[in-house]
């Protein structure tokens, strides 16, 4: 099973704009986004965290078995870390991140209607 991560507070929650992982701002600053650190490089950069994550999200899911869960598959979260995810997140990624994602063919699924 995948390793997991869980928000350590109910407040200051933000969702990663690329994968939808929900954690507190502080957790993002400390550890970055477990799934998409290679695209967003959040660790240690508060400004970057504010740019690439959002407090505006709708619908929350818990993913405990990302490889075999229908919910996980439906939301394109197969193989992602176990944790809490947003169904839909609204926000704007910095253009360079978006460009990088496009170059790699990675869809920020949670961002489908910003």
């Amino acid at each position, binding site marked *: *099973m995948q390793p*997991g*991560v*869980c*928000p350590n507070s*109910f407040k200051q929650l933000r969702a990663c704009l690329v994968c939808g992982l929900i954690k507190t701002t502080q957790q993002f600053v400390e550890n970055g986004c477990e799934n998409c650190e290679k695209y967003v490089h959040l660790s240690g950069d508060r400004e970057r965290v*504010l*740019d690439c*994550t*959002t*407090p*505006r999200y*709708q*619908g*929350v*899911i*818990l*993913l*405990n*078995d990302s490889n*075999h*869960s*229908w*919910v*996980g*598959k*439906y*939301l*394109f979260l197969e193989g992602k870390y*176990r*944790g*809490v995810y947003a*169904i*839909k997140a*609204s*926000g*704007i*990624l910095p*253009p*360079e991140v*978006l*460009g*990088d*994602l*496009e*170059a790699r*063919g*990675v*869809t*920020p*699924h949670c*961002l*489908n*209607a*910003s």
Partner: protein
Amino acid sequence: MSAEDFFDTAEEASDAEEEEETPSKGEEVATQDELAVAQREAIARIDRRNRERSLNQFETLDPVKAAEEDEKRAAEWTQRLKGTYAADGEAAGGLRLVRQPNPSVDSPLWMVKCKRGHEEEALICLMQKALNLEARGEPLLIKSAVCSEGARGFLYIEAPKVDFVKKAIYGMELFFHSKPSVVPIGEWTAVLRTGREETPLKRGDWVRMRRGLYKGDLAQVVDADEQRGQVTLRLVPRLNLASLTASPEEREREKEEEKAKGFRALSLKPHAFPQAMFKPTQIKELGGNVEVHRDAYGEYYLFDDHEFRSGFLHTVTKIANVQRNDVRPSVEEARQFQVLVAESAVAEPKAQDDQMAPDDLAKAALSSLPKAAQQKMQIFEVGDKVLVVNSDLAGLRGGVLRVESNKVIIKPFHKELLAQFSSLAFEPMQLQKTFDVGDHVKVISGVHKGDSGAVIEVEDNTVVMFSELTNENVDLRPQDVQISSETGTGMDSRGQFSLHDLVQIDARNVGCIVKIERDIFQVIDQTGTLHRVRAQEISGKRSNRGVRTMDANRATISVGDVVRVIEGPFKDRRATVKHIHRFYLFCHSRELMEHSGIFVVHARSCQAQGSTPSSSALPGAPSVAWPTQGDQKPGAMAPPPRSFGRGRGGRNNMDPEQSGLVQKTVRITGGPNKGLMGIVKSVSGTMARVELHTKCKTVNLERALLFVITKEDTETTARPLYPQTPTHPGMETPVHPGMNTPVHPGMMTPVHPGMTPIHPGMTPGPAPFEMPAPITRPPPTPAAPAPTPFVKKEEDVPRQWTAAPPQPRAASRTCLIPDTPCPRAPRATPRKLPPSSPLPPPSRPPAVSLNPPPTPGSYPMPSPAGARLQYPEMGAYTPAMQLAPTSAPTPYVGPSSVPPPPTPGGYQFSQRYPYAAPPTPGAPPTPGTPAMGGYPYPLGQQLQAQLQQQAQLQQQAMSQPVPVPPLVASVETWVQPRVEVEVSAGSHAGQTGVVRELFGDGKCQVQLGHTEEVRPAALHTCPPHGPLASALFFAGRILQPNPTALAAHRMPSLHFAWGLGSGPQLISVDAHALTPAPIRDVHPGDRVVLVRGADVGQIGTIMGSDGGQVIVRKESGDVAMVDLATAARVVNA
């Protein structure tokens, strides 16, 4: 596609968008909107490519087909991106179809219940639990869980087995452990559907501040960054100019304090400083330090660390601090923004010449106004006067006759037209309400809702009303206004407070809101005094849930009961209890005109009528004072209506032996309820159902455990069991020492122990302050009980009681006092009594009686030591009760002069009552006792005097006492309060007056006086804000806006008489001797009552007049032509 490509295309796309939406934006700075568009495009491209790739794996792509499909999908995408994508069974829409996984039956979705509003938290907790358990090597076997937006109170858990779900939520607080149910597969995708998101804040949007100095103020968004949760606002500044003149040190200190608190404006009280435009010159003159800066957006000023542009404060705050939904700026507010823009443009022309100057915001402010007006549907009511605006008949005026679904039928005010068409139909959009100067109107919506007054000016789109509440002119939109003769009672609510709420005025006083003016509440406090209190001064609302008190017959009064006042100025009035504060009742009577019908009476001056099931006495119960406890209980409890619950009464006809027990009062002699009394509701076999007196509870008991109490028994053997009726023992206790002491000084003492624990509870803290002086109360006998050792058993108590001679009524009333429940009273803490403390000295100080009370019912039987400790309190208690002694003769004064030694334990309240000798009769009240303590009614002195005066007037007016309940109007139904009448018989024949009140016997109280025209000269002679002036404003109708020509007419006598100093004359006359007072002048909006015809007694509003006929809109909504002679005017308040 490379990153460069991306940027190129993104720019193209955004350019294309710009042409449509934001033509004015600069090209250098990419705005949020542009970025958002670019992002959507990019995501669409990525998705499309991924899809192609995955399709390629399975089939060779037919280029034509692929292009078609591309187009189709692109269309789908655009639709979706525009936000109009209607959810149609797919959760996330379009492209997902390609890879959409099939739901698997192996692992269903279970629905579990969780605490509403905590779904997200529950989910996070569940995740945490999953991780923790996994670390322990026993992982949760659920696969996922979903917190759907729409389903509040539910979570969905995906797991192969229900046991896994149960295990997952086991022991978790936020979940309810009901049986998980399976979600049908067809609904799975719906679970993952999200609603439409909130539209993000944009530049130019209106918001309101939620907290701090600017709370409630309108603000305009200058810039919003939702991702960071920040928004830049511009506001009309509220500057503390007074602090500019303060010394620098003080300012420094203030600043530090503020910094410690965080964002300054948030830490300040709302609206602490007035709104004013920022004027740098003014600040400089006052000695403020203003720095001028310049940036890309133009010139701005820095003052006090705040940024000011064009006179507005620009501030950055968290989005959480603003209210974004349902913000509708009022006319004044939005205008303020426009006006200020104009002003600032004049004051600082430089600020305007920059390209990004906030003039686009000003435009937004301007444009938002008509929109707001359009959005609001006009509401037309029958009787409204309207002006036709959008039609070839524009300019025609008419009166609304009927309103159909989307047509308004009007009667044209045009003779020739009227000859042809009796009515015309228009669409609501074609009409506009119109008013005449002098119309009495009320405001039905908007900020001023609830206000009323006379129209003094009518412009195109605004109506200027002279408000009766604030005596100020108010600008209103016609659609917010309606013709009405109602005098504004103010708003029904403002903020958290609404009319008739019980509020805490200050530490001591509570009051009932009787009128809400814009920022001021009129509050009548427990002494009956009227206060005008600012909203900020009210410290909070008081709840009166479960508050009860006792009426003159010791029946419980709770909120909502109907009471009849049996004495005092409001004698014979029937009213509903709105609030109870200690033993004051805030009652509401519709017939009473003052203070919106609210008046304050002492509970003991009332009798509960038609009491709710909670009251324990019947209204008609003889008020022969002090029935013994046993006496009262069965008497009060026995009547059948007491049995609530369904069908329980039906069981009564069982076999005679069993039914013999039914409805009997019994004492329970064993089991957990041992010692309690109750009424047998039904019997079956060896079991009986007993409704307890104490609790609202019915218990099943063995019949063997029941001991039937006959009436005789109750008199001779019933014990005063405190748990039984928590209120009663306390009530009775105070009587005994005083009553009985003279007879059995030594014997009486032991009576108290049983009772003692209760009454301190009944007179906690400040209660004695409000204690009314007993009229025939015997004097205090503080030392009497003390010397006597405790010898008697509790069983003796009732005997003593019954032996006591029946108390006079007045005494019984005084006994009610300690009974007043005081929910806030501190609980007794047995700890405070040192267990090893020695026997108390003979006489205890009065302070002891103020000992925090025990909770009745839960009070433990005092241990011998504890009991002994408490007996003397009885003696001490009495003096405490006697704060306002009377001159009744006292046989026992003696030992009271012995100064009592200090209490060993030391009581919390003892400081309040220093150990002085207890007051002896005739001694002045204890310091701290308010002066009113000496009055029979503990009301404010002023009110007291007023009320007495009124009572005298009433007594003069009414030669005979009024029979109690019936208010059957066998008299003419048109005789109603407020109707103008002429007396046709008796000594006052020929005089006019206004009906004040109806009595049941066909008589009514008429206030004599006459309506009179007052010349402007009379107004000049009185001070502009004096009582007469306001009386004029309230009673009269202002005909002309010009104050010098101000003419008020038709003044009800009350105000006239009051204004000129001669008191109102009240007479009592037979209703048959009244005829309607002739109506001399008719004004639309006046209210009349119909005197003859089928609708006699109906009240209507005059819409217009035609010679001797008037058009009246009745309350039922019908419109009728009525002969003026068959109507009587109904005056305002």
